[in-house]
């Protein structure tokens, strides 16, 4: 009796070691890199140059943050990034949800053609240079609107919202129609309030996209006062990549190095994402599964 028990138990032990070992490994490789940057950003810069693994700052210092946060370039970049996020959210959510509502109508005229018109853009793009030329032709170079207008429509998100709207019972709208409400009134007063969960997901999508965008600021703007936080970070990264390590180390002044500035800027740009992360996990994942079921 006892022998059978043991024979059954041993594979269970091995299985457990494999399962928990693997998951532990995943936990470490996803968490430690970000944590390490966080610790380095809070550690004294000259001390960091000695190397060595730290789970906690060895010599606590917020000098890097003070330098970063008192830099006018970062101030301006943060302002632009916050502004584009705040303006971009209502703009994009409005256009996406309106388009989704229209396309969710079963009896829409020329529905197939209109659908194709939008879907095709998911598969084929005009690529970098022609896009640049379009921005130039529209006068969007060095213009704040280049952060807002091109991002107004996103077909993938539109499909997510449309799928949700298609699942709503028809009776809701029919009742309002009988009372003489037109499509715009129905959309605003009936459809939008019911769609709050999926629209919340879209708000987060837009917020993340706006906050993380570097490319448009990097390519379509030249004025320093239109550079976004990620674009400044790309510039810092490029400088770092072209310099060699020795030169970086020599630049140490008053407990701050180019390296520690890079860490602190990275953390400043990451912090808002971490702050809304619980929300993200809830809505983002739901949104993804919603799309997966329908596709």
């Amino acid at each position: 009796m006892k022998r059978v028990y043991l024979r059954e138990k041993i594979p269970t032990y091995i299985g457990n070691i494999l399962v928990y070992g693997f998951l532990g490994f995943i936990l470490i490789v996803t968490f430690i890199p970000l944590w390490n940057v966080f610790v380095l950003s809070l550690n004294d810069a000259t001390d960091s140059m000695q190397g060595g693994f730290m789970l906690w700052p060895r010599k606590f210092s917020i000098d890097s943050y003070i330098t970063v946060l008192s830099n006018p370039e970062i101030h301006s970049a943060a302002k632009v990034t916050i502004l584009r996020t705040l303006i971009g959210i209502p703009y994009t959510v409005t256009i996406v949800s309106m388009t989704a509502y229209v396309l969710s109508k079963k009896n829409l005229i020329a529905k197939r053609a209109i659908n194709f018109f939008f879907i095709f853009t998911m598969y084929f793009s005009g690529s970098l240079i022609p896009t640049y030329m379009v921005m130039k032709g529209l006068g969007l170079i060095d213009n704040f609107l280049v952060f807002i207008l091109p991002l107004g429509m996103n077909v993938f998100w539109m499909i997510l919202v449309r799928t949700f709207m298609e699942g709503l019972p028809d009776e809701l709208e029919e009742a309002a129609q009988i009372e003489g409400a037109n499509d715009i009134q129905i959309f605003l007063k009936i459809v939008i309030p019911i769609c709050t969960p999926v629209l919340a997901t879209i708000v987060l999508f837009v917020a993340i996209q706006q906050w993380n965008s570097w490319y448009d600021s990097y390519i379509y703007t030249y004025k320093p006062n239109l550079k976004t936080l990620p674009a400044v970070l790309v510039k810092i990264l490029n400088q770092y990549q072209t310099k060699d390590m020795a030169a970086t180390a020599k630049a140490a002044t008053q407990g701050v190095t180019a390296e520690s500035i890079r860490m602190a800027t990275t953390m400043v740009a990451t912090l808002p994402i971490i702050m809304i992360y619980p929300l993200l996990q809830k809505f983002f994942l739901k949104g993804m599964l919603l799309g997966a079921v329908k596709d």
Partner: protein
Amino acid sequence: MQATLKKIFKQRYLLLMLIPGMITVLLFSYGPMAGLYMAFIDYKPSLGNFWESFFGSPFVGLQWFKYFFSGQDFVRVLRNTLASSVLTLSFKFFVPILIAVALNEAKGKWFKRIVQTSSYLPYFISWVIASNIIITMLSSNGLVNQLLLGLGLIEESIPFLQTGKYFWGIIAVSNTWKDMGYDSIMYLAAIASINPGLFEAAKVDGAGRLKQIWYILLPMLKPTIIILLILNIGNLMNTGFDQFFMLGNATTMEYSDVIDTYSFRYGIQNGMFSYATAVSLFKSVVAFLLVVTCNGISKKMKSTTLF
């Protein structure tokens, strides 16, 4: 005719609501597509304003394409594009399946939650931030080198990001690191939809955990795995731009230069607008054909294997 007009009138508010979305797509998606005409002319910015140059520049037909295909760069950038994306796919594809299976086997709600929360995080940060983190990890006194030194596996620090032959591997691992948690969600959802009765029946028949995974879990996941694999193959040409732009540098150029970065460099930095457009048009067309073919195959399989 009259019926159509009547319908249009009846749906006038709907059509009104469609305008902003259509204009946005028309300007920023179809506009650039029309601009692909640039690939067939010798665009000269000196001819005046944009429109004068656009219509005034001489038509050169396929000259830029011939120039691209006959040059040495073509083989190099195509090799880099395909090598890094095939390597990425072969690595990035299996890890999420392992994560989902392991999460399904593990007990302990809080432990699973922590693992999931942590593994999704890299997906939400941008490549700018991710690259900063990766560069920090791989630098000469970064964590990876310290670990290898500490274990006595190497004598001195390896300059990972300055060594060309490591580049494709770094891209593959970075892509996997960033997306593996998020990609595992799809498999977790598929596992959750398996009838638990199947596992119980297997248990009664005396199947252990490994046998349950091998004979029930994986066969049930097979349709999802195959479809995601085909969709991933469809995206082989779409390597992404950010990670190559940020992790690559002058020392690794031989291996890190993909079609997108190549076109970016020639277009934005060297001002060869027409040539850069031709290069990216080639990529767009190949990517489009690949995606459409693979989507078609996956749709066919969905209807035969899933339902």
